[in-house]
């Protein structure tokens, strides 16, 4: 099939070809409806087109546009559409996915192009805009089919075919990124910093201020005359083409939630580091994350929970809600039974903790764990020591105390990392269980965020009232258990 070259297109095509444009760039600037079928661009058509084999007329060798050029490298796309839209790159992409052994339903192909392609595109646009407008099909620079778009249209089907028919679509949780660089022409952008210094403010994370976004913004602001003063038109040719970097695969995070019990008084919730050195060999977080990371083949995780207990505190009852973000899972999909198996594996691996209600959740649902945390109640059981000998009657009055408001000055043990404040916290109810002349068990139902240890020992009087004041003797807390964390998320899963 030959590409029909309409009479009215001739001046434009001639001008582009004589500037060294590659066939695909010529087609982009023509922007005729045969290049991409935008007329039926509803969602379905987009999807279909994504997966359709490449239209034959895209193949340069079959068009009459193929010409011998002075420099073989297209000065507008720097070879991206000319050399790189081919089976070699498709194979490189497929290889990267296979090497990392990703499991996926569909993938989205993303491409990162050197920022100077925007400058070159602009220069080319200024070169031919009179001719383009004469055709009256394209009105502005934005109507020219972008390099990115042309690249994807060509590569999607190739990649799909190479992967044995995988769905390469425009939106997917699995992103495969191709990055092109062309260091020799990076300086193309530099003049923009003098014409529009506002656009190029240094930022911490970027290695160069000449990001694609900044360059696009600067090009929007610059006048044509000013641009032409600083940059050649058409864009200058270059002997080498872009180089493609390593293919980057990234699956969006998967979120998993559940509840955990902690049965051990020498287990921190998260790795405990003091001056970079580990204090305890394990942690709740690591015991839970181990089997999950391994099964999902994730590269990292973020753990969060509804409050946290101290290293020497147990969490009993139904446990404490937690959620984990699994970063870049290579195997992201599991059904309920498979999740149950992971849960079993966690529970078999250690008797220091136990997990229940393990389930995949959405990122949004995770927020529910944190919302209204302050209003939630928690129940505790503490073993209290008294300096003065006690009898049953001495502590029975505690059972009648309801809705006791404490003023808790930030405890000394967390003052190094929390702001100094007096926080009012409510103890909804208490009950005491006599043990011997110096010990009793204290059960408490409190507002979340109440510091129980400080309520019992007083923290040098920083929590008031405290148990020392209530019993008029020195009191200390020897053991503490969380009996329940009353947060109704995540939903329970029947065993």
């Amino acid at each position, binding site marked *: 099939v030959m590409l029909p070259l309409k009479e009215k297109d001739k001046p434009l095509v001639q001008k582009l070809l004589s500037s060294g444009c590659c066939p695909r760039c010529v087609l982009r600037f023509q922007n005729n409806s045969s290049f991409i079928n935008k007329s039926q661009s509803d969602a379905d058509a987009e999807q279909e087109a994504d997966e359709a084999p490449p239209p034959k007329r895209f193949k340069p060798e079959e068009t009459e546009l193929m010409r011998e050029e002075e420099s073989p490298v297209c000065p507008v796309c720097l070879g991206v559409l000319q050399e790189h839209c081919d089976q070699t790159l498709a194979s490189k992409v497929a290889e990267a996915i296979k090497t990392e052994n990703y499991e996926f339903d569909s993938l989205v192909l993303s491409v990162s192009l050197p920022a100077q392609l925007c400058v070159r595109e602009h220069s080319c646009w200024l070169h031919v805009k009179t001719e383009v407008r004469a055709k009256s099909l394209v009105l502005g620079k934005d109507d020219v089919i972008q390099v990115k778009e042309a690249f994807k249209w060509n590569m999607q089907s190739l990649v799909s075919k190479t992967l044995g028919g995988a769905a390469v679509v425009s939106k997917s949780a699995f992103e495969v990124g191709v990055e092109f660089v062309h260091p020799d022409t990076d300086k193309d952008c530099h003049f923009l910093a003098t014409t529009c210094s506002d656009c190029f403010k240094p930022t911490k994370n970027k290695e160069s201020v000449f990001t694609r976004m900044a360059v696009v913004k600067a090009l929007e602001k610059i006048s044509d005359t000013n641009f032409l003063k600083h940059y050649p038109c058409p864009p200058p040719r270059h002997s080498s083409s872009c180089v493609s970097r390593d293919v980057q695969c990234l699956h969006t995070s998967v979120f998993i939630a559940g509840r955990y019990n902690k049965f051990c008084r020498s287990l921190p919730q998260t790795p405990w580091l003091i001056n970079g050195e580990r204090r305890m060999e394990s942690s709740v977080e690591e015991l839970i994350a181990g089997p999950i990371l391994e099964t999902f083949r994730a590269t990292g995780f973020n753990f969060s929970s509804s409050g946290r207990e101290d290293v020497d505190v147990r969490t009993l009852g139904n446990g404490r809600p937690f959620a984990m973000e699994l970063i870049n899972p290579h195997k992201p999909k599991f059904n309920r039974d498979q999740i149950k198996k992971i849960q079993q594996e966690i529970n078999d691996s250690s008797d220091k903790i136990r997990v229940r209600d393990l389930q995949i959740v959405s990122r949004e649902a995770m927020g529910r764990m944190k919302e209204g945390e302050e209003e939630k109640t928690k129940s505790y059981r503490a073993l209290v020591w008294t300096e003065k000998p006690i009898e049953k009657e001495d502590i029975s009055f505690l059972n009648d105390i309801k809705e006791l408001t404490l003023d808790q000055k930030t405890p000394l043990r967390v003052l190094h990392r929390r702001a100094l404040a007096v926080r009012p916290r409510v103890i909804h109810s208490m009950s005491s269980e006599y043990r011997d002349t110096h010990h009793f068990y204290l059960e408490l139902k409190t507002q979340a965020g109440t510091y129980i240890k400080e309520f019992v020992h007083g923290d040098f009087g920083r929590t008031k009232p405290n148990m020392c004041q209530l019993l008029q003797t020195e009191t200390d807390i020897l*053991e503490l258990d969380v009996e329940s964390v009353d947060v109704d998320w995540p939903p329970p899963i029947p065993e």
Partner: protein
Amino acid sequence: MDDDVTHVETETRAPSVIDRYYTRWYRTDLKGKPSEDHCILQHSNRICVVTLAETHPILQNGRTIKSINYQISDCCSRLKNKVSGKSKRGGQFLTDFAPLCRITCEAYQVATGNLTILAIIPFTEGYIAVILPKLEESKSITENLLTRDEFEKVVAKRNIFPSQPS
């Protein structure tokens, strides 16, 4: 598991809060005044709690504290000082010999102070001040202080050769 079994000693006391979480440091004869000893409790999180040692004259012979004045000068009050945020912005910087407060008790007045220290947070009962040393100072801060053992030796010597009040 072992650590889940509840061991309760009814007769002897388990380690106290201070024993469990704090290291005791001492400085004796502050500003050369005999027996004006201070105890600094350093938490494992580097927070320091300044208290009077049990040997301090204020705590001897049933003296009662009448008042504690945190107004160091016309413009500097240790008590009214406000700090904000995790970084305790507005905290007062202390140097060695900066007085923390003046304690008045029956027939005895002392000026307390002295440590290379950072932010001071107002007094609550049971201690004179809470000090948050800079991270880089948290080790060196205790260099010139006595350990509990050293302190006990000093006190024992003192009892054999009582110094004359100056």
